[in-house]
């Protein structure tokens, strides 16, 4: 067994300096209540059973993973204090934190970890199931767990966060029907905050875990997640200080600039490095003329994505150059560029033989919009105008979340707007949209465009089993160049969701998990 130096190093650094940002704020104050905004109401709070975004915000304070990840997605200690990966990439050994207690007072041990990965997540987690089905966890002693693989799986080291790999208590779930376990109404974790009460339609109340394993933490006494259904009311709550924190889509982007100008509020766009959300339009390549690469390129040239960034997203976005998010260690900016160039778009359409008719139109396509509020409606309107300019008539189809999902999974669309978190490793969050083995009717968030390229399939497969990071970088660079040239989907922008918080609140965004980190370090200065 051999140490992977970089990981071990970060482990040691992480242990001695649990929160790098604390150096700037030497005296965190104990106490205080954090009133945070939450919307929509989550379906449940047990991480793993539910991974919807409103679940994550409160649940990541209750549950923890073995690791956490910094802004560059380097692993940091969490429930694991150190770890080693063997040189062949087939054995992962985790040393667990000593003296950790579940919220009900029972001790946390290696048995909980083994149960979580071998039995719980592999059955219920909608995303991590397939990741951990490749591994077999076993207990060495109460503080040591070993994961064995049959074949190397390089993304594994970036899969142990609380969202993808939350540790659940074996003494509560073992041998039960996980989905119908009565304890699901009262989640038990190891995190810095304990579940206290959920008043449906009003709030979720978490209280300080006095036995938290990081001594002296958390600093806050309690957190209230206030359910406020109207976005104007949410902005007001931040303005008048009734709420101290909002994130993601809580506030309409149009309001963010106004709030940012207020002396008591701060806006942070970092903290989504782990999620790495990219928005794009999926071409249904089973339909003409969307099956023609030239048509797809023409769409790319016809869109002024700088305009989309600045005007539609109010600057809270970054132009996406391809399938991999710019915060990923595997991002390569050196790919074919699609600068705004309507002439080029028209030339490509001419070349295809799609000439303008008497009304100046070359083609008719339908655009299935994303039902997530005003920003996305404006986005649709812009696409309609921009494509009309090069002779493509766009009919906007609006729907709600259920209708949108149903249309996409049954391939009933021409062009569909979507955004997806591309996650901590391209194998986990990017490959799913492009590999041909993932063309599955009836399911969401797979290769809905029907794009198929054997070379792409082969490279993604190779990137899974290649252990060396430098080698993987090369593979992903090649993949990015091929995909960007093939344009299976029209990437528009990387979303930079704003986290808006009261300046009395400190240490809010300190790593790549952003508002979905544990908040053990968050503290509140008195008024």
């Amino acid at each position, binding site marked *: 067994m051999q140490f992977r130096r970089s990981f071990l190093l970060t482990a040691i650094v992480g242990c001695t300096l649990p929160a790098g940002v604390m150096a700037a704020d030497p005296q965190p104050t104990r106490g205080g209540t954090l009133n945070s905004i939450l919307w929509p109401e989550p379906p449940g709070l047990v991480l793993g059973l539910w991974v919807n975004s409103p679940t994550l915000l409160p649940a990541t304070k209750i549950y923890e993973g073995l690791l956490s990840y910094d802004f560059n997605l380097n692993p940091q200690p969490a429930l694991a204090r150190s770890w080693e990966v063997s040189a062949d990439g087939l054995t992962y050994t985790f040393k667990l934190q000593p003296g950790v207690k579940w919220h009900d007072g029972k001790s946390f041990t290696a048995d909980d970890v083994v149960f979580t990965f071998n039995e719980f997540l592999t059955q219920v987690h*909608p995303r991590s199931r397939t990741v951990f089905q490749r591994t077999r966890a076993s207990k060495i002693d109460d503080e040591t767990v070993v994961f064995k693989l049959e074949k190397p799986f390089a993304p594994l080291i970036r899969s142990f966060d609380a969202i993808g790999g939350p540790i659940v208590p074996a003494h509560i779930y073992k041998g039960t029907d996980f989905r119908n376990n009565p304890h699901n*109404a009262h989640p038990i974790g190891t995190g810095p905050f304990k579940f206290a009460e959920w008043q449906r339609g009003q709030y979720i109340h978490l209280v300080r875990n006095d036995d938290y394993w990081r001594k002296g933490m958390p600093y806050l006494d309690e957190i209230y997640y206030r359910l*406020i259904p109207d976005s104007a009311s949410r902005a*007001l709550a931040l303005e008048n200080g009734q709420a101290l924190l909002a994130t993601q889509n809580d506030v309409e982007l149009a309001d963010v600039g106004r709030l940012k100008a207020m002396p008591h509020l701060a806006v942070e766009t970092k903290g989504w490095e782990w999620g790495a959300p990219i928005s794009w339009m999926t071409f249904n390549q089973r339909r003409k003329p969307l099956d023609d690469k030239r048509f797809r390129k023409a769409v790319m040239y016809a869109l002024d994505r700088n305009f989309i960034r600045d005007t539609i997203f109010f600057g809270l976005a970054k132009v996406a150059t391809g399938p991999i998010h710019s915060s990923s260690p595997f991002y390569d900016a050196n790919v074919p560029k699609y600068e705004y160039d309507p002439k080029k778009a028209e030339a490509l359409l001419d070349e295809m033989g799609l000439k303008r008719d008497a009304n100046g139109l070359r083609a008719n396509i339908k655009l299935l919009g994303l039902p997530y509020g005003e920003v996305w409606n404006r986005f649709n309107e812009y696409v309609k105008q921009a494509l009309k300019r090069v002779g493509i008539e766009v009919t906007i189809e609006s*729907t709600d979340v259920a209708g949108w999902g149903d249309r996409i999974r049954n391939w009933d669309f021409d062009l569909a707007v979507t955004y997806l978190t591309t996650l901590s490793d391209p194998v986990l969050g990017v490959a799913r949209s492009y590999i041909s083995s993932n063309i599955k009717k009836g399911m969401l968030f797979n290769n809905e465009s029907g794009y198929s390229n054997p070379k792409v399939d082969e490279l993604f497969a190779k990137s899974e089993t290649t252990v060396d990071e430098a080698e993987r970088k090369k593979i992903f660079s090649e993949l990015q160049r091929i995909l960007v040239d093939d344009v299976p989907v029209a990437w528009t922008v990387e979303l930079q969701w704003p986290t808006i918080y009261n300046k009395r609140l400190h240490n809010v965004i300190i790593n790549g998990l952003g508002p979905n980190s544990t908040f053990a370090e968050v503290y509140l200065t008195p008024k």
Partner: protein
Amino acid sequence: MGRLSRALIWIGKSLAVLVAIVVLNFCLIRLAPGDPATVLAGEAGASDPHVLAEIRQQYGLDRPLPEQLAIYLRAVVSLDLGFSYRNQRPVADMILERLPATLLLTGSAFLFALAIGIALGSAAARRVGRWVDSAISVAGLVFYAMPIFWIGLLFVLLFSVALGWLPPFGMRSMIPPEGAAARSLDVAAHLVLPALTLGLFYVAVYARLTRSSMLEVQHYDYIRTARAKGLPEGRIVRAHILRNALLPVITIAGIQAGQLVGGAIVVETVFAWPGIGRLAFDGLLQRDYNLLLGIFVICSVMVIFFNMLTDIALSIADPRIGAS
């Protein structure tokens, strides 16, 4: 026909209407694309076939539609409204939990609208063509025409943000005060803005209705007779004009009362009021079939109940109606 048999016919009719509503709503909801599992997958950004199949099986969504309808009807007959997929709780519990909040909001708005509307309407009718009449008409028209969510937001801006007098949203303070009296006051303070917003819309309706109805009635012969008898003006207005003028107002009020449960979605959303309207709206977006059907059933029962009350109220105001 005896009173008993009339009541029996009425009950039979109501039950038939109720069953028809359940079946119709069941079919309507299923016509909407997507199902609860799709919504959950959509929100999670992940859709694993195994997990989705498990969820559909757990909810019984994998069974044929007629079978699902039969199961639901059987449950409703035994007064069981089923289980909410999304919230993992019995629908009846959720509705009962939200019902008081909605009834408090819509009830206060209703009484406020009725009292103020009738008062303003009679005031306008008695001073027809004068400035009071014009002022009431204009104000009524403005509140009637303005979108309700807009009035709500303006009130919040004025009374909560600028003046800081009243809480902007929610039903209770984030840290509720000690003691029952203080807590009631706290809820009352939260109630003012949403009830006012919802009520003002109906104030306009009742004021205009009362005004036009009174204007019509006061030219009737029996009013002239009353005046000729030398009755005092106040008594003429109250006992002769208003009582007869109120019939259309009661009819409209009855219709509004039937909507007390479901009619406040917009206001409940703007003010984060934890009521039924919002529950229904969320339930629709999340395709929470059982929850939606449960709310429809309760709303239908309320409409039927208030129709009955309206009939009774009309027969009290005008005994001739009961006799016919």
